[in-house]
């Protein structure tokens, strides 16, 4: 059964976070009728528990639906969901490469936000046709006319006939479907050409092995096709091809040029499949691979250690599986004096880190200790060599360092004019370099700053939100490396250096950071039978100190016949708390202390 290419629409929805992308996706799936209302879960595309709880979409996913348009024809829609957070630009990029067009959702009350711009530019970079949709018109504060003007003025997209919708209530979605048919081009490519398919995602299934999500650009793939991954060189025979129902795989005969679907080929080795790679026919290969999409660099590194050292192999397996459908996750083994065997892992950003950490804990049942995240520093040594430093513990002796460089980002912050002052102040505190400011319209401005990455990975988002009461949005791009006066800050607990707590910091903020770290650790570390000094040091010199006082009293004054069971529960709770501690020397440190010391902004 050949599919008429002109009746296929491959598209995605892009939006700033919370502008209603997932809700619109749900409505589209609902209204194209592939699912009964009973089958609809609240948000069909977000099928991970974690996503539902956080309310954001993490992994790109695809769904195929059939739409009977007003012209009487049936169209196949392949909707590819994309994440909305700046950490996940890479995933957005992967999804975009599989599409021919994009629906831009803008909130009728909030208008354009920083990520709206970032995502639109990304879509245009991929040569996608983009048309706008104005959502949440049911809000009392909705002002669709103003937003239309904004879209035309700021982005330069025609917006006069943009559908005005309420995805939540299903209003106007019909018009969106029609515009998808009219405004998004049908795919090109010839089913008879040599196979050329782009891997935009993959997952591991214990029965089927690796399941490849791909967009066929040229040619046709079917059961029995002998395929080759052009980058890894792996060859396999196709076992099954199919497309994506909502939440399930539906096998079909073949996938031809223009189609989006999946391939299984009993691939057991996770490493054979790289997202971004091109699949071709081993017997009739295409001339060249597709341009891979923008290869991402891990921006944030931290150490991940199993709380129970014996779980190290489990952690390794879990990371391997996660990496399969999250190519932006990187890891390599490392050891820490304080924490034992673990991995140094690279992430796109702090949110990405937190999500991976949660997935490891939730989906793989691992109990983890996470060390302070840091960025990649370049250390130029006097002997002319260069070290890319991801773990502060590996910083060479200062006398052998010629100079160091740190990554800088070009940041764009969109903010209501009343908060410009406090946001500029924040950027100054974070060593920002002011580049300029543009007014988007009367009451909103776009601030441009160069900021050191290590100043924004910790709690910049939180600080931004709290200092603008939520009325600021933020996006950034890596700009490059610049020389900087950096030092390693060490933390000593009970006079023992704890390698997992060391981090690199700008010399000017070392004292301040050290002081705050000590204060924070003082609150995190429970009292022991003896006094525990907590010290911060740079180059062996103590720059800050706090003391956890010795425990003087920990006793239940009363315990009689009526409360024996209850009193025992109290003791059990105390015992349970101890299990979540790391023993360092003679001091027990709660696992969360390694992470929570990073949230140091005191102006909440």
């Amino acid at each position, binding site marked *: 059964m050949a599919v008429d290419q002109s009746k296929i629409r491959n598209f995605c929805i892009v939006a700033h976070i919370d502008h209603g992308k997932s809700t619109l996706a749900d409505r589209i799936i609902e209204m194209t009728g592939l699912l009964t209302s009973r089958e609809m879960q609240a948000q069909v595309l977000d099928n991970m528990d974690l996503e539902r709880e956080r309310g954001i979409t993490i992994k790109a996913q695809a769904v195929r639906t059939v739409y009977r348009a007003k012209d009487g024809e049936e169209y196949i829609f392949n909707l590819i969901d994309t994440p909305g957070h700046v950490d996940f630009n890479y995933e957005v990029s992967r999804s975009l490469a599989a599409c021919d067009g994009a629906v831009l959702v803008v909130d009728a009350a909030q208008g354009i936000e920083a990520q709206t711009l970032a995502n639109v530019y990304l879509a245009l970079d991929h040569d996608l046709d983009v048309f706008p949709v104005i959502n949440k018109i049911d809000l009392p504060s909705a002002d669709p006319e103003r937003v239309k003007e904004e879209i035309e003025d700021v982005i330069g997209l025609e917006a006069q006939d943009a559908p005005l919708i309420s995805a939540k209530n299903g209003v106007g979605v019909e018009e969106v479907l029609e515009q998808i048919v009219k405004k998004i081009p049908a795919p090109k490519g010839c089913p008879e050409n040599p196979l050329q398919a782009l891997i935009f995602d993959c997952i591991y299934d214990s029965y089927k092995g690796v399941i490849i999500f791909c967009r066929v650009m040229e040619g046709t793939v079917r059961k029995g096709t002998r395929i080759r991954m052009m980058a890894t060189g792996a060859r396999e025979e196709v076992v099954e091809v199919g497309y994506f129902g909502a939440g399930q795989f539906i096998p079909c005969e073949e996938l031809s040029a223009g189609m989006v679907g999946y391939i299984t080929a009993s691939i057991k080795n996770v490493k054979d499949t790289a997202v971004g790679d091109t699949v071709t026919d081993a017997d009739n290969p295409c001339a060249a691979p597709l341009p891979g999409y923008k290869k991402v660099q891990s921006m944030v590194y931290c150490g991940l250690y199993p709380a129970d050292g014996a779980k190290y192999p489990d952690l390794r397996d879990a990371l391997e599986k996660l990496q399969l459908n999250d190519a932006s996750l990187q890891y390599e083994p490392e050891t820490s004096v304080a924490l034992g065997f673990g991995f140094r892992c690279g992430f796109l950003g702090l949110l990405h880190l937190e999500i991976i950490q949660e997935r490891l804990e939730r989906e793989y049942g691992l109990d983890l200790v996470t060390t302070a995240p840091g960025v990649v520093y370049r250390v130029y040594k006097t002997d002319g060599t260069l070290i890319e430093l991801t773990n502060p513990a590996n910083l060479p002796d200062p006398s052998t360092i010629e100079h160091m460089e740190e990554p800088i980002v070009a940041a764009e912050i969109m903010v209501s004019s009343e908060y410009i002052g406090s946001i500029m102040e924040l950027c100054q505190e974070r060593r920002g370099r002011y580049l300029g400011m543009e007014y988007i319209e009367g009451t909103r401005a776009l601030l441009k700053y160069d900021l050191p990455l290590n100043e924004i990975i910790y709690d910049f988002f939180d600080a931004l939100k709290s200092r603008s009461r939520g009325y600021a949005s933020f996006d950034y791009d890596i700009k490059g490396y610049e020389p900087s006066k950096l030092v390693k800050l060490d933390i000593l607990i009970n006079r023992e250096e704890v390698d997992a707590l060391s981090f690199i910091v700008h010399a000017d903020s070392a004292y301040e950071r050290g002081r705050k770290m000590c204060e924070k650790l003082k609150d995190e570390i429970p009292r022991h039978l003896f006094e525990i000094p907590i010290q911060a040091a740079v180059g062996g010199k103590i720059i800050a100190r706090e003391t956890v006082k010795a*425990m003087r*009293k*920990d006793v239940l004054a009363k315990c009689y*016949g009526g409360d*024996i*069971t209850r009193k025992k529960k109290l*003791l059990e709770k105390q015992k349970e708390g101890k299990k979540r501690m790391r023993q360092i020397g003679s001091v027990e440190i709660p696992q969360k202390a390694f992470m929570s010391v990073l949230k140091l902004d005191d102006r909440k």
Partner: protein
Amino acid sequence: MTENRELELYFHIPFCVKKCLYCDFLSQPASPLVQERYMEALAREALGRAEEAEGRKVVSVFFGGGTPSVVEARLICGLLQNLREVYGILPEAEITIEVNPGTVDAEKLSAYREAGINRLSIGLQSADDGELAVLGRIHTWQQFLETYYAARKAGFANINVDLMSALPGQTLESCRKTLESVLSLQPAPEHISAYSLIWEEGTPFYEMEKKGILSQAPEELDRQMYRETKRTLAKAGYERYEISNYARAGYACRHNLGYWKRRDYLGFGVGAASLLENVRFRNADGLSRYLENPLGCREQAQALTLEEQMEEFLFLGLRMTDGVGFDDFADCFSHSLEEIYGPVIEKNLRQGLLRRCWRMDGAGRRQEMLALTEFGLDVANYVMAQFLR
């Protein structure tokens, strides 16, 4: 070894004149009619459950609360009378009732004596009227004196006085003064319970602390008061035999020792707990339900595993300054203490939290004991938690 054929009885009287601000016990003011109905229900429960105590020797009876003395004396005495008919209460049994100053008079006290109650526990808490007011107590020091001497006159020769330290605003000086005042009673009480105030969740005190109206005494001061109490009472001839309990020789509270030595006990009344042949169970908290069907309120029976029994043996036994006996443990569980808890014991001995010593018991048997040290008593939870799985 715990005498398994021995039994204690506990009666919970959930009534008081007015709830104190720090109190988290099951207690509330109630009309005389409700009180009478409750006492009838108690009798029904006690009689209905008598077969559970078949063949047992009752070594102690305890009327606790609440304030048992708010209830009319004839109701308490009548209940005790009924009990004697169905429970094997030994003639030398310790029979205690808790009273609060201002709720008893000479007549009531005489009635108690005549009914065979031989031990009185008086809630004083402080000799400072200002502190009493802060606690929300209904009496003054003067009223306590009247009650105390009336009790002596009625013939009570075994009296406990409850004291509290680490009260909001209390100084070391006023703590000392309370102790002196109590010790200057003629004759001084045979037994003193001295508690460091506990800020229990759900009490007005707890709420007031959260709102910043009251604040807990600093730990250092709390411990100074604790040490002061111990020193002063030791000098006056009282032995501290448990974390918060002091007694003249021979006057340790047998009933409470039973809890720490895991003697079987049956509790009657709302919310009352029991331990019978290594099963713990309790009555539900609701008063109206209890009034309706006192025999149908049992909930949460928990059969203790051998491991749980060992844990209890330690975290209860270590509350006593004598600690737990190595032989007693081995008799109970056919394993030695070292076998089960060797490393924990070693570690705590090394840290100076536990000590080993020899002791002669009443029967003239010498055995080695494991007990908390002075420092260990201050951080008892830290030590006890390690004996849990």
